[in-house]
């Protein structure tokens, strides 16, 4: 990597810090005691985290978020990859129409289907279950669309070589397409994971049991305490929000390279 003009580098760093300042400050705030925060003094503690995890059950919420986002990611990727493979490699009766139906979901906000989906899942008895959180989230064409664009960039000759070598379509998918789409699949996986991690409106309506709250719902509720309840404990809220942000940041740092590369390869035709 090239050495940078130090002045420029400093400026850029400053701009970056300023850009992130709200997040950074909120993390800093999460380590302050409530009293210190309200009186404007400085006094550090880990108590907010203890409270968030202990009293406010954020450990459980974290687990729920991990389970739900994890399942959505894994199942969503599997389903999307299969479909993307078919759309990228086959022309079959109605393939354009079906692909159009998949792409159109990009343009349909999930909110439009909120009420019917709620009723459907209610009828199926799936509200207040992990399945109720996971299943509707998989109905998303973005991953399939994105992966198809990517797979189309993989030379078709590679599949054909594998067919000539004696592979079945499933083998081609597993042994050739998936390994070669790894950056795209990884970045799509992170994208799905993050979207689901941040999903708010659906868990908000689909989950009533506190046991099944995701971090987002837990955090939003902690922030919007009851009228007639304690004042907003900002340091506590910020600790909870840091707990909510942290795993995603860790995940991001881990796959940053793949992500940026994958996005770059897939998103633009």
């Amino acid at each position, binding site marked *: *990597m090239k050495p*940078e003009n130090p002045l420029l*580098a400093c400026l*850029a*760093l400053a*701009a*970056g*810090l300023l850009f*992130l*300042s*709200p*997040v950074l*400050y*909120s993390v800093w705030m999460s380590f302050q005691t409530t009293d210190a925060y309200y009186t404007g003094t400085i006094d550090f503690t880990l108590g907010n985290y203890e409270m968030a995890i202990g009293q406010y059950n954020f450990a459980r919420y974290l687990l729920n978020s991990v389970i739900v986002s994890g399942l959505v990611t894994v199942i969503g990727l599997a*389903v999307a990859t*299969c479909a993307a493979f*078919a759309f990228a490699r*086959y022309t*079959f009766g109605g393939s354009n129409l*079906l692909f159009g*139906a*998949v792409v159109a*979901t990009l*343009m*349909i906000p*999930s*909110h*439009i*289907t*909120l*009420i*019917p989906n709620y*009723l*459907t899942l209610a009828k199926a008895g799936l509200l207040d279950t992990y399945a109720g959180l996971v*299943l509707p989230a*998989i*109905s998303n*064409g973005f991953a*399939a669309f994105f992966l198809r664009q990517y797979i189309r960039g993989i030379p078709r000759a590679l599949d054909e070589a594998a067919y000539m070598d004696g592979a079945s379509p499933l083998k081609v998918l597993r042994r050739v397409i998936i390994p070669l789409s790894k950056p795209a699949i990884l970045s799509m996986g992170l994208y799905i994971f*993050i979207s689901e991690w*941040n999903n*708010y*409106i659906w868990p908000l309506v689909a989950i009533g049991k506190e046991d099944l709250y995701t*971090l987002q719902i837990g955090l*939003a509720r902690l*922030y*919007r305490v009851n009228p007639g309840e304690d004042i907003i404990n*900002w340091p506590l809220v*910020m600790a909870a*929000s840091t707990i*909510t*942000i942290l795993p*995603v*940041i860790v995940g991001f740092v881990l796959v940053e390279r793949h992500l*940026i590369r994958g*996005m*770059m390869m897939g*998103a*633009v*035709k």
Partner: protein
Amino acid sequence: MLRRITPYLFVLPLLAFIAVFTYVPIVQSVNLSMREWDFLSPTKPFVGFDNYRLLLDSREFWNALRVTAVFALFSVPLRLLLALFIASQLLRETWVSRLMRGALFLPAVTSTVAIGVVFSWVFSTDYGMMNALLTGLGLSKVAWLQEPQIALWVLIFVNTWKQLGYDIIIYIAGLQAIGTELYDAAAVDGGRKGHVFRRITVPLVMPTTYFLLMVSVIEAFQVFTIVDVMTKGGPAGATDLVVNMLYRVGFTLFDIGVGSALAVLLFILLITLAVIKSRVIGRKVHYEA
């Protein structure tokens, strides 16, 4: 025979999900939109287009539409322009630009609720960081989230802040795909920076712009979390985006008929927009390299 049905087997799972959780619900929405129901009554009387009429006659609906349009109209170009500019500055693979990309991308992967919460604090009138800055500079406080003329802009700002990183990364990808050779060619031909940017970069990054435009317009119509956390549509409906209204009508007032009618109208609107977009812009985008 097996050869024929193979592709169908591959797309079946996804299509099943999409059918059950997207397309069937749309049909159900249409049905519910012509009924009157509050979840509690055992019956759902058919009322024809009453719910639509109610909506179209209401001040709220048009307000929500207007607010959403303003939001989309300003936030989308703002995002894209800023992102294109910043992306073109961060193209080189130096550690500074990688760091900057990381910093800019971070909000995109950060919890929206957390961002809403943090920015509620940042823009809170009495305790917020913004006003602390302003008073520090000797200026008077601004009621960021209470002033109807300002609150929407605060949301546009926060939304842009959050989404910018994603747009930038996509733009970087698009810009890098243009490759250096065209720039080399332009340099040899005697191009100056601005001219080359306008005549080469902007047109060639069009497919990316189109993609982002599509995604961000959809997103603009889906913004909910930030609104719910920061303003709940207030003050006085100034940030009452369509989806927020949808949630309010459907899930706080439980006017399922009107809520569904709103969903159906939103759906029609978005599909129309998509068609217009692909008619107007889509055509200009497809050239081969």
